[in-house]
């Protein structure tokens, strides 16, 4: 199986930031060590062209990203502090998804060891998502004639609001050719959920049995309805019980069963499958435990999807014909630091009115 990965997927964040940035490199190292992927099957993407990003995102937003002129609210909504390295990284991950979709169409299955940033909207980023790789890549492949119809199967615990928003016009299926399915925690972020083609909201605490009982009839049904040229699978691992943001209660075995079922069903339908990470914010950290451990735990959960795909598809898919490129130089320092100041007036503190 060929996958997209670049060491530049990891960029520095402020200390103790909630996003486990190191999970990308940890996942790569883990999959190589386990032999799930081979070094020659790793294709390193360059940054996506601005012109491709414009198929989904607005000129204003891309300009603000390029020049570092996001407002404080925009930055906060994104959940990640702006840096030039972050923008480069996000563009690289988009190209990684474009490449992964292309490789999936060629090989039957492929993945990006990042991507699935489904909360990103045309005009702003949110929920740790800067650019919507799913939407951009699908529009690029549609425009170039690689595919007509696609099914986005979004099993991240959070509803795919950005993707749903972008392909909202496709609700009158098959108008725009992208059928979006989101199975998510009903009470979880995002608060406002623009409709996907199919939305399934699950109650807090949903466990393995109820989850799989929902998915089993749903997937064959939407596959038949969408009749896609490609399935894009966002296999978010934030459905597991001890995820920091999840609210659902799948076990590791339940997660493996879910990913196994998706791979087998899509393979049996004869449709190429593209694997994307999306969310995962592993277990709580015990006092004194290093953040790295948390990223490794998250990576181990993300590895489930690739292990299952390797088992279902075998080792034949995706012989090497592209070579990895070397990594870029060191990334820029994070812009925001921590400031604690207990002094000053009681209310308000930040900027008193003029």
């Amino acid at each position, binding site marked *: 199986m060929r996958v997209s990965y670049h060491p530049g997927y990891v960029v520095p964040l*402020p*200390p*103790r*930031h*909630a*996003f486990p940035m190191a999970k990308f490199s940890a996942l790569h190292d883990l999959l190589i060590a386990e032999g799930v992927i081979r070094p020659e099957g790793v294709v390193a993407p360059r940054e996506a062209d601005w012109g491709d990003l414009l198929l989904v995102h607005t000129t204003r937003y891309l300009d603000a990203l390029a020049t570092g002129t996001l407002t404080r*609210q925009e930055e*906060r*909504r994104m*959940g990640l*502090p702006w840096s030039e390295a972050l923008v480069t990284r996000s563009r690289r991950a988009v190209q990684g998804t474009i490449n992964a979709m292309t490789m999936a169409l060629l090989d039957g299955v492929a993945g990006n060891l990042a991507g699935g940033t489904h909360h990103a909207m045309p005009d702003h980023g*949110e*929920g*740790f998502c800067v650019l919507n790789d799913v939407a951009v890549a699908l529009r690029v492949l549609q425009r170039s004639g690689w595919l007509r119809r696609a099914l986005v199967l979004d099993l991240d615990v959070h509803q795919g609001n950005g993707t749903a928003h972008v392909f909202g016009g496709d609700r009158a299926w098959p108008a725009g050719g992208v059928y979006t399915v989101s199975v998510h925690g009903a009470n979880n*972020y*995002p*608060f406002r959920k623009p409709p996907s083609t199919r939305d399934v909201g699950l109650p807090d605490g949903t466990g393995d049995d109820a989850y799989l009982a929902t998915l089993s009839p749903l997937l064959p049904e939407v596959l038949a309805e969408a009749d896609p040229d490609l399935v894009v699978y966002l296999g978010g691992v934030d459905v597991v019980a001890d995820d*920091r*943001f999840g609210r659902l209660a799948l076990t590791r075995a339940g997660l493996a069963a879910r990913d196994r079922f998706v791979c087998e069903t899509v393979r049996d339908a004869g449709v190429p499958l593209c694997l994307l990470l999306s969310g995962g*914010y592993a277990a*709580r*950290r015990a*006092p004194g435990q290093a953040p790295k451990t948390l990223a490794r735990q998250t990576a181990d959960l993300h590895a489930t999807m690739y292990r299952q795909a390797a088992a279902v598809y075998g080792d034949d898919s995706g012989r090497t014909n592209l070579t990895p490129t070397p990594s870029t130089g060191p990334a820029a320092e994070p812009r*925001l*630091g*921590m*400031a*604690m*100041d*207990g*002094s*000053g007036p*009681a*209310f*308000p*503190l*930040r*900027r*008193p*009115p*003029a």
Partner: protein
Amino acid sequence: MIRSALLALALALPLAGQAQVDASIVPEDAPDWLTMEDAIATAQGEDKIVLVYGYAAWCGYCARFDADVFTDDAVQAYLAENYAPVRLDIEGADSLQFFDARVTGRELGGAMGISGTPSNVFVDTDGSLITKLPGYTDPETFLYALQYVREEAYETTPFDQFIAARRTGLSLEQAMGDLVAPPREETEAQ
């Protein structure tokens, strides 16, 4: 809700001649209180503001704040959408993770300048303090404070004018205009 919380309190202390306040008991109908670490993470991931509610176990007004304000439906609904709330025992000796620092509740309360309870401190996702709201407030005023901080109205408007605008249903511009500039006569049609 208030009554049932007090009843629970009374039942929990059957032997005490005079029921003592224990503000560390959280009413049943409470918001989803988070740990500090989860609150910071949630705020970062879901674009929320960390609300640190500083209390002390013996503090009578804290028990009232819990019973009156945090059980209010409108307050809870607004909190759920916009805030990641944390209870901070400002005399607590247990250590907690606040960004890079491993501190006790007492230390963090001190660093945040909480000198009395109850006190609500608004913390941004990078760890900077946005503002503080010391003392007891009624649910309506507290809701306005939550909105005031979330909407960043402090950039333009004093808190009392913000409240006045909300109460009268005027826009901030209208409320400010009434106070800042006298109504102007209509200019000639152009």
